[in-house]
């Protein structure tokens, strides 16, 4: 067909030829996802309930869309899959091999992988800061690569941990997002992935130093918690947690927390830029504002879903979709906080310092809802206790 537009002009934004723009790599990636889901279903389908089959099936379009919209994610997913499958293959159904097999012992058993994740996050933080201080592109690039590596190791660690839990006993096995230790790994992972997405989207690595700092703090807490309380040990699930709802409620929640944490760190960068600090080392304020808004928007959307899923689950487990349990109440407070933030920006057109401060303070509220409630208040969510 004759095109009126010369090839130099890109296709119109949002044109309907979305499917036509898929590359061979995209299709291969989708095919692998389908193959993976089919394999999982044929091997384990009989122990899954209908909801779990639905969740498995939904993974294919969701991960496909994610990989198609954000190409580096395809490689990421592939790396995690290869490493996790390698680990499972090396285990050969025997937990003891974590101590005997070289690769398991030093690389891809769950705890070792999580240790690698922690190390990579710490070094990445350092690299980003050095890169920023020295205005070195190499430093920032290293930081970015290490963040990818850490995210791969973290996700591998969680996948392998899932498998290990089943080796402890079929009835013990469960998805590793059931206690504070496991969700801290998830939080670090999701925050890092969200950041990497925006890093690619805006073509700037200058925010790495800020975002990786909050991830490092989370990892430091994770390690402290693991070492002082031996929290890294897989524990069986109490009856209230044995539900497919966990598989969607918890991850959705952490996309929310991750988005809010990211926004807060960008807010810090904005406030510094506002004072003229780190001149030339930060992205434009316009970009900072934009990332902050988008992080809060995605965080808010997923946090809404998470809270609703939580209510649906609560209705099934506790007999009431809302019990004003402290965790629920604080989730509502977090939700209200960001709802007001969004109203201020979108309806009032508020911009600048005020919103940045608000995003930073928002992280304090989020942290309290995430960790503080478990430390200081008692309630139904006590399995996340410190």
């Amino acid at each position: 067909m004759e095109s009126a537009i010369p090839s130099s002009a890109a296709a119109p934004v949002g044109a309907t030829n979305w499917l036509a723009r898929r590359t061979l790599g995209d299709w291969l990636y989708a095919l692998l996802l389908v193959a993976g889901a089919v394999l999982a279903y044929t091997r384990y389908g009989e122990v899954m309930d209908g909801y779990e089959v639905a969740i498995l099936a939904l993974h294919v379009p969701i991960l496909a869309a994610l990989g198609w919209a954000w190409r580096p994610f395809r490689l990421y997913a592939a790396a995690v899959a290869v490493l996790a499958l390698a680990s499972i293959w090396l285990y050969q159904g025997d937990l003891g091999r974590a101590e005997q097999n070289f690769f398991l012992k030093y690389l891809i058993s769950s705890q070792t992988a999580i240790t690698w994740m922690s190390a990579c996050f710490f070094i990445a933080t350092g690299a980003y800061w050095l890169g920023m201080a020295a205005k070195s592109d190499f430093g920032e690039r290293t930081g970015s690569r290490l963040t990818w590596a850490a995210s791969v190791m973290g996700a591998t660690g969680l996948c392998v941990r899932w498998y290990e839990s089943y080796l402890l006993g079929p009835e013990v096995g469960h998805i590793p997002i059931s206690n504070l230790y496991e969700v801290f790994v998830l939080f670090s992972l999701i925050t890092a992935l969200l950041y990497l997405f925006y890093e690619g989207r805006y073509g700037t690595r200058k925010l790495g130093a800020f975002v990786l700092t909050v991830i490092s703090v989370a990892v430091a807490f994770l390690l402290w918690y693991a070492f002082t309380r031996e929290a890294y040990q897989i524990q069986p699930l109490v009856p209230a947690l044995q539900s497919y709802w966990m598989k969607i409620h918890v991850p959705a929640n952490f996309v929310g927390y991750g988005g809010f944490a990211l926004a807060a760190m960008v807010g810090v960068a904005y406030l510094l830029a506002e004072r003229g600090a780190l001149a030339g080392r930060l992205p434009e304020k316009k970009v900072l504002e934009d990332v902050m808004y988008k992080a809060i928007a995605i965080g808010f959307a997923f946090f809404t879903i998470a809270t609703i899923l939580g209510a649906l689950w609560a209705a099934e487990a506790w007999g009431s979709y809302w019990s004003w349990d402290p965790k629920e109440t604080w989730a509502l407070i977090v939700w209200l906080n960001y709802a007001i933030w969004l109203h201020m920006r979108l309806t009032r057109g508020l911009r600048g310092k005020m919103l940045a401060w608000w995003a930073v303070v928002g992280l304090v509220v989020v942290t309290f809802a995430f960790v503080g409630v478990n430390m200081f208040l008692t309630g139904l969510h006590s399995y996340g206790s410190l």
Partner: protein
Amino acid sequence: MQQRANTRASVLEALVELLSSMRFAISLLTVLAIAAIIGTVVQQNEPANAYLNQFGQFWDPVFSRLGLYTVYNTGWFVAILAFLVLSTTLCVIRQFTPMLHEMRGFREHAREASLRAFAHSASLTPTLTPETRRGAVSDYLARAGFRFRVDERDDGVLVAAKRGGVGRIGYFLAHGAIVLICLGGLLDGNLPLALQMSFAGKAPTNGNQPIAHIPASARLDAGNWSYRGNVYIPEGASADFAVLNLEDGILLQKLPFKVELKRFNIDYYPTGMPRRYASDVVITDDDGQRFERTLEVNKPFEHRGVTLYQSGYDDGGSVLRFTLHDFAPGKRPPHPLEIEVGTRLPLASLGYGLALELTNFRPINVENTAAPSATPGKFTGSGAGRLTDKSLKNFGPVFTYKVRDDAGQALEFNNYMLPLEIGGRKYLFSGVRKSAATDYSYLRIPVDEEDNAETWFAIRRIFFDPARRGALTERFAKRSLDGGDKAMRERLKTTADHTLTLFTVGGLDAVSDFIEKSVPEEERDKAGAAFIQILQGLTWDAWQMARADAKLPALKAGDEHTAFIRDALIALADSVRYGAPFYLQLHDFEQKQASILQATRSPGKPLVYLGSLLLTLGIFAMLYIRERRLFVLLKGDEALVAMTSNRKTIDLDEQFAQHRDGLAAALAVKV
């Protein structure tokens, strides 16, 4: 007159204006958040005296009056929610027409000056012939997914295009959803009950009375359409009512069916942690229809608008069979007893001015025996950790009871059925405490090779019997100084008598007090050792005397008995402070459990769920379907391109640049 009506109308208008303003809505949200925080900081629905202790005499009534102990049920909190509903509703109504207009319209009458003033506008110079320009623009816009409308003007043509207008529906969905959710929440909350108590004369009553005595004013019939209550059913029994617990008593809610509990099951993980709670129930409808169901945590069951949840469990009246060992010397032999959990047994017939209240029974009791290590376990490797260790152990049945004297004073006991092994030795554990606020202190009774505690009780009876003290010390002195000087033997006997007198009154403390008072400091250690030696010797002799009483052959002294003697002596010392004149040893039990179900009727649930769905859709639509308006004004030799959006993000800059370039290309003559 006209004037007054006008004023009234304008006041109303101002009021609506205020209520539907975003300022008001945001203030409400803020107040709601603060109120919610108070509710998490002050623990809700605690017993009244707990608050009195916490806040003191001055603040407690103030807080109570403000409703801080039941924040989410107070009138002012419900009022905030009601205002939120009102404000959001008014806001949606007010926005409806303008937003609909905005959604439908193309703004094709936009003026040139205002287009030029847009933050994103650019002037292009088309090289295409004037007659084809309009077609080129339309083609481009259609390909880019825009809908558009053309306005022919005197001096040119405006093509007004837009995409993503449906995003505005998100506004109605999300805000309508908030209204739905709040309304649903009000229906399921405390409000319906509060209305029944205010207008239908319902009043809670004391929960400590038989069901039959509960007055009609505290009974709600099966037609009640919103409630949440607990149903307690022992195995083999049935119930057709739920108990609603209120601040100042209970209400009985009749259920439209009868629930019979056949069995309550708990499954355990290998670690002893509960894995599954399940109640096998038979439900009998009012019309006689019967069917069986299993209720589990996370697997509720709905019938006739009432949902039943597995919510808890309790003992349902297990029957426990004990042996009562009396500590006192020379009294009755071990006495059999049978009691049901949850009942009270006066012991007057056994000669005690006491009553026994059996409060709880747990047949399985798993504890972690791993010593808390200072060095953490291995962090790397698999996450298996201690689950694979054998540090978790089932200690078997445990029961708790209170021994209450005639004055009403009670001590609480916590006894294990099976002897527990510690350091290769076995003991029966019995914990005692004065109040629930303190930890149990444990008496550890050593058992013999047959795991029998009676050996120790026999020793104790002789040890503490003044009538046999002479014979005991005589025997001890004779054995210790066999063939020695008679005077020395007499002295030793006297010392032993004295020691025993001290010990039987005050345990080892009395002996050490005595040493402190009468022995110079530098010799105390030596003296202490001597006293212990005497006491251990006495224990041995008491044991042999007990064996003789039971017509058992005497044992040959030897090192293999040292540990038992040491344990027995420690238990003898501790038993002085035990607090009850007897020890209960459990032999046998018939377990009977009770299940606690929650019965709810929540008419607001469908509203809340619908609202949740709409909220999700609305939020995604509002945040991610961005409305884009693109204007192309063809006028003379110029093509003016302008773009705007209701979401001003950086993407708009990029998209504008892209469309500007795209249009420039579309309007250029192809080479």
